[in-house]
């Protein structure tokens, strides 16, 4: 397998790695860099556990190959607090006891932070539609939705304080 250098920004730090072009981002993070906060539970983009931000948007790291991240800005759950909403979202999800086993949590939180960063006005139906790509097997989703609504309110409260 031929390797080639790929350069990208990861959690604000420039990186260059020698990897095969088809190496998946999920593998780069978890196995090459030992950054295991993002999880892999299906490997085909159907569960959302591996969600990271690529150029500001949530993507499934298991679907993204090394050649696609050349020059990209990647934020994994380890670096998510680059966004100011992360602290608020995490606090709300924690207080609501939104998760159980927690394996899906990094993906859900990443999607929610991205949503509320861009659309703090997101209502219930928008929140639910945005979470359609994330599977949770433990909770039945209601605790996640309660936490997400609390997070949205807290983000709005924070923004109104600032403005």
């Amino acid at each position, binding site marked *: 397998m031929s390797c080639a250098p790929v350069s990208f920004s990861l959690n604000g730090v420039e990186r260059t790695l020698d990897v095969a072009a088809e190496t998946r981002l999920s593998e780069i993070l978890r*196995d090459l860099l030992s950054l295991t906060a993002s*999880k892999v539970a299906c490997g085909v983009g159907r569960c959302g556990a591996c969600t990271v931000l690529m150029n500001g948007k949530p993507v499934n790291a298991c679907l*993204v*190959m090394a050649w696609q991240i050349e020059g990209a800005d990647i934020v994994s759950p380890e670096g998510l607090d680059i966004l100011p909403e992360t602290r608020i979202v995490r606090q709300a999800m924690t207080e609501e006891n939104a998760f159980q086993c*927690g394996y899906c949590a*990094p993906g859900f939180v990443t999607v929610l932070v991205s949503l509320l960063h861009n659309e703090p006005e997101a209502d219930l139906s928008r929140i639910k539609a*945005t979470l359609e790509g994330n599977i949770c097997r433990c909770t039945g989703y209601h605790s996640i939705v309660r936490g997400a609504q609390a997070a949205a309110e807290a983000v709005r409260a924070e923004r109104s304080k600032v403005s």
Partner: protein
Amino acid sequence: MRVVHPESLEEAQEIARDAGRTACYVAGATALQLLWANGGAKPDILIDLGGVAELKDVLAESGHVRIGGLTTLSDVASDEGLQTGAPMLAHAIGSVAGPAVRNLATIGGNIANRNGCLLPVLLALEARLVIFRSGEMRDIALGDWLRETPTATDIVCAVNVLASGDDAVWIHRKVGLRRAFTPSVVAVAGVVHLDNGRFDTCRIAVGGGVVPPSRLVLTEQALQGRRIASCDWASASETILSEVEAPDDLFRSGAYRRKAAAGTIVHALQMKLGGVADHVHADPPPPTLAREEIELGKQMLPDRWFTRPDMPEKVDATLSYLTDVREDGMLVGRILRAGVPHARLVSIDVSAAEALPGVAAVVTHRDIRGENGFGIVFQDQPALCHDKVRYAGDPVAAVAAVDAATAEAALGLIRVEYEPLPLVDDPEIALESQSAAVHEHGNVQTELHLDRGDIEAGFLEAAHVVEEIYEMPRQMHGFLETEGGFARLEADGTLHVAAGGQHNYRDRMQLSRILGIPEERIRVTSSPTGGAFGGKDELTVQPALALLALKSGKAVRLHLDRTESVLAGTKRNPMRLRMRTGCDKDGRLVAQEVDLVSDSGAYASLSPGVLETALEHAAGPYVIDNIRTRGRLAYTNNGVGGAFRGFGANQMTFAVECQMDRLAALCGQSPDDIRRRNLRKPGMPGYLGQRVSLTERCDEMLEAAMTSRLWSCERGLSPDGADYVGVGMALSYQGNGLGTIPHDEGGGVLRLAGDGRIEALLGLDELGQGLHAAIVSQVADFVGCARDDVRPITGDTLLAPDSGSTTASRGSYVLWNTARRTAPEFVRRMTAVAGSLLGKDPQDLCLVAGGIADRRSNSGDLLISYVDLAAALDPADRPSVSTHFAFPKTEHDGGNARYIFAFGATIARVAVSRATGEARVLDLDLHTAAGPVIDVASYLGQMEGGAIQGLGYTLLEDSLMRDGAYLTTNLDTYMMPGIADTAERMSVFAQESLDEGDDLGPRGVGELGIASVTPAIVNAVGDAIGYWPSRSPLSPEAILDHMETMQ
């Protein structure tokens, strides 16, 4: 694989032409991983179109919208010009894949793949494609392009759609296997122009999945020119049915696709043209709480709502799961699976694999020094196969190598010769004497009978008899963290095996037996783990991990990918259950006959216990004098069955509770009347004649169910004509504990740690259920300290004593009883050591938040903190109290019987779509009576999560197999509920009281949430349409067929 990045269309096409079939264009690349996982050939060259700049934009102008082929789906959908000009397309994009996929996937890629569910939408919008072919741009109608033979060198540069205009209405609906992020069963789209109350031009199309994308020309012609007010919709529906081409696939028949297409098109057109808005099913009125009942939630019980101790590190993503451990020099393990369902194993040659550079160890059965068999009850499952393989997931060898790619390559070098044996894949046929034998002693793993009373005389008394065959699926646990972990030899020679599990001491015992190593030389870590639900109760990857670590002498990690987890892991046993129940004219049950066949798959694991538990719940909480039950468990070459939340009880409850509603309908009684007439009374013997514990709450749960607010919600045909709405209920009666026969003990330790924390040591596992929250709650309650003072130590044989398994809803009792039994002595010793340190009478001291206080003082001041107390004491003087006890059992010895039960009632409000036959759960109310609620958040979570896992079992989930191979190999086709499938609203209630003299404390609720969801939903469907499906997951086609007879 090489990726090239052309900067122009010409360059891209040239590369594609020169490379032929070994190259393919790629844009978002989101379809490739699934394609490759399903056996699609990997090309040598990927031609990245991303650098071809002119292909990315959306331009709305004069009646058209032009979309560049490389525009991502999310950018298309959010474009304002598109939302105005082609709102149907924006809407439809929301039904393609999931949001994160849409951030990468492009519209050109979706079109180029030719089977996307956007194609009918684009056809209805009269899309024209700009195709780059043979060096030039061509403008071609999408329909014409689809009819051409596909050429691999075409590049979809842009798509132009007609803006619909103000005089048009549009319809779009994607019918899938679930409500969102689903493969398409059929997608429909239409644009209809109106002219003075008549249909003018119509463009209607279907497609999606296996349905060829096409315009419905005959249907369009039939509508054109008609007056809308007098449109013959039945005839339009007939035209659609005859015009849609739709093949069968694994999941739905072609006939269903045609009906769903006709139903959705006609209904959507009627609604849009009639100006009828979608009906929103109103929220139910607020609940009226039954006596002593509380509703669980942060808002309702703020004083009892605490952050779970494990929550911050899970939300922050800092918790390291056992599959997250990475260390320098750690090898990567992989397991070679048989891949054939039934064969004699002739030879295994690993020499080539061993010779591959980077391979550190290859293990086969020859490396097993102990007994090559495991299983919680019967040790019939080889750690690595030696003489034959009995299912496709059977492990034959395992490899440890420097990295995953080398390990994978080594697997490919192992030569295994098989001699095929006849396939046994039907449990009923497997039970016949002439069937090929999966195991030497035959395929009848277990056969159980129970006869009581006189069944013939009983049925003679019956005024009404309901006989039905209930068929239930092979549900997958679907824990998000698949099986895996690591193993290594510690410096002192101890073998440390760390993999998600549910009883580490038993895992250790089983490993000891396989490896021929004394138990005390093995350490097993079994949690934290990312979900289990029974699926990590049996050994999974631990034997392979242990063997690889022993042979290589190095640390090895191994993590099954989802497909291997599907292949190898246990599932809920598929069951076929014939139940015949009779009642007299007043609804009194007079006789019941049950015949149950369960598919064990290749090995026993806990399937015998599941069968036994199912039969123990054969009458539910009802009294039937005359019964005859037979249960048979068959070995087959299918995937292995085993423990799964509910453990047979929920399957049996499906049948029992539906029989009750059906008999009620025959008697002209209410679901309430018939249940009340037959309900067991406190103090009666259990179903097997055993003595059962105090605190029975059947009456209370029935009362709570019948006074539910949901019965007063609107039912019947919804105002928009879309759904039939019904309400159904079912009672839960769920045994706790392992029963009389299995060895069942528990215990733990309470001690003061060196850093001043009060440690509770329990050999239970945090699987997500809230064990740690429950531990800190109980210890704080019994000791008097704060929750933050408590540190749970669990999930590791090195760190905590054996507390028994974290299964069968038994953990709550174990931790409660441990806290109850250790706390008084712990407090006595704590006050004694503090008293002597402070020169005070221990009698005057008590434990409070943070430390020791004077019990006579109101100030709350600490005399000494736990931190200072611990620091002042020699380690040997720090209080430590242990306990060990038997799990409470009844005396019954005529079969495995439960002593403790938990009670509940599930009420469901369900909407059944008239167009598609799909059932959607609007409301779920879960009433429970399981003693004191230890931790509100955890209890609520268990009930909600169990209920939605049950909803999946009822409506969506089945692991399909054919010829011993799984057909649903990953989460693209195995449909666990997503956020759109969950009940729209769900409330959980608890009655906490215990009878006087009941000293058994809180009941476990791990299984109570799933106990009666299926029959509640099915009874709601019965209420809605007078038809009780007897097969789960419910078939929309069967429901649709029934509804056709209702008109």
